């Protein structure tokens, strides 16, 4: 059994009286697409926020390639090569696409212009941003200098996904990346997820779209009431079984429940 690329044990996060994470476990293995499903408010976003440094859990441990890690800020996770598409997208609306793609890791000119005068390399950022959008087949965006708030909801989502795909070097986490996308754009994102996996990076995909989950995922993490209720393989379980596990109508270990593969490899 190989070490998970990213592992969490007993994560707890409380917001006042609301417990968003209630001892949640998580395992992501190298090269897999792991879908995370669960009802609204189950704590999926809270889970991946803990895994991407966006929130510091009250309790529990996170292990990166088997080594215990503490992310104090999103920057820590980013530096570890974990890229995240947050449900809120985390874009600056009044800035253009290129600036948003490079937000927080702008490129500087080589030599003293960048080193001493801190001059940004805007042409390079624009060029790379355009190349990235072209490579991803994102054609709906007309030009890289467009202000993000003038984009449609789907286009904005495409920008956020492009950013994660561009910089993810260890794993990519996506929180409902296709929620606002049309059929064609959704397909683009799904293709993109496959391509990220083919690059050898594991992907975490939060989605409410069951057919999409069953098409893409290697394993499905079912989240319920702030913790992991079960992990199943799409081949072993039916959509209705997964939905039953999500809502609590079915419990793992019960007769008729699919086999749990939470620790599997």
């Amino acid at each position, binding site marked *: 059994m190989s070490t998970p690329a990213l592992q969490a044990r007993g994560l707890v996060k409380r917001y006042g009286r609301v417990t968003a994470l209630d001892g949640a476990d998580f395992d992501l293995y190298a090269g897999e697409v792991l879908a995370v499903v669960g009802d609204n408010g189950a704590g999926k976003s809270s889970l991946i926020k803990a895994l991407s440094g*966006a929130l510091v859990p009250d309790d529990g441990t996170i292990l990166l390639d088997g080594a215990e890690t503490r992310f104090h*800020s*999103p*920057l820590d996770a*980013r530096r570890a090569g974990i890229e*995240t598409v*947050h449900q*809120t*997208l*985390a*874009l*600056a*609306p*009044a*800035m*253009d696409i290129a*600036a948003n793609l490079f*937000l*927080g*890791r*702008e490129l*500087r000119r080589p030599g003293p212009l960048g080193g001493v005068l*801190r*001059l*940004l390399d805007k042409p390079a950022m624009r060029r790379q941003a355009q190349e990235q959008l072209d490579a991803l087949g994102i054609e709906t965006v*007309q030009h890289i*200098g*467009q*202000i993000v*708030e*003038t*984009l*449609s*909801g*789907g*286009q904005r989502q495409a920008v956020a996904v492009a950013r994660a795909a561009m910089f993810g070097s260890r794993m990519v986490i996506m929180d409902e990346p296709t929620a*606002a996308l049309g059929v064609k754009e959704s397909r683009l994102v799904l293709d993109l997820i496959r391509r990220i996996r083919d690059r050898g990076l594991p992907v975490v995909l939060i989605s409410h779209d069951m057919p999409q989950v069953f098409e893409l995922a290697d394993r499905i993490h079912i989240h319920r009431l702030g913790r992991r209720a079960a992990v199943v393989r799409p081949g072993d379980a039916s959509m209705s079984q997964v939905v039953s596990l999500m809502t609590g109508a079915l419990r793992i270990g019960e007769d008729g429940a699919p086999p749990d593969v939470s620790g599997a490899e």
Partner: protein
Amino acid sequence: MANSTATAGPLRNRTAEAFLHNPALGPLGALVVAIVVFSVTTSTFLTVDNLSLVVQQSLVVATLALGQTLIVLTSGIDLANAAIMVLGTMLFARLVTEGSSPVLALVVGFVVCAALGGVSGGLVTWLNLPPFIVTLGMLTVVLAAGRLYSQGNSWPVTDPVLGLLGEGGYLFGQVRVTHGMTLAVVMFALVWYALTQTSWGKHVYALGNDPEAARLTGIHVGRTRFSVYLIAGVIYAFAAWQALGRIPNADPNAFQTGNLDSITAVVIGGTSLFGGRGSVLGTVVGALIVAVLRSGLTQAGIDSLYQDVATGVLVIAAVAFDQLARRRSR
């Protein structure tokens, strides 16, 4: 959400987009119109001497507005800037009058102004207090400190170093250019560079846009916000030095409306009070518009109260325009 960019009114949207990219365009147009109107309607406005005077008169408020621009871009506001500046003038003048060297007085004044900016910034950043309240408190405290320190007097500017920025020479033998004007150009250029050509500037805009998004992209939101207030404090010290080039005495009751005047310049210059949008160029234009209006209306023989009316109307128009341009682009 509908894709309005592709469907409805491409021309209208392109105009809106141009303004979004450069919110200083509108104010710049207004400035040009004002200059043309006053040049045609009065015989005294369009003279080299008068134009130079207009610029000199706008220097202090423009410099205050430069610091204010930085803070407003982070969706903050600084009500204490003029009070900090006035305290700076008191320090400069009194220390020199009491025998310290002008350079030492300048250093002390700069350090105190920067520290006061830093106090506001620290309270806003790490105690999460609203900038309006923090700087309102600072305004009261610093104003009182200035009066206490003045001992009820105004202190004369006796040293040439303190009055330096009011000195200057003549360009082409006839255009009066003071050192203060040169300094202001350099400062505006530096802040423009920092805001538009460096990561720091991008981070200032990003956190003004959406602090949570900025945090999630790994930007040091707290550090950046604090640096903005600190730099603004330094800029207010420069404003204090500018002021001593224009007034014969450091007076604790001077520039009473400096804070509001600086906000006026920032807003007329097209910088959004909601943060994340605006430019230094806009603030230059905003400060010039106010000065041009004052000068032009005075020369047209119009009562100064009407000048206030005109300025007030402009502020509201600028904010309305900001809202309109943004709504169109959606």
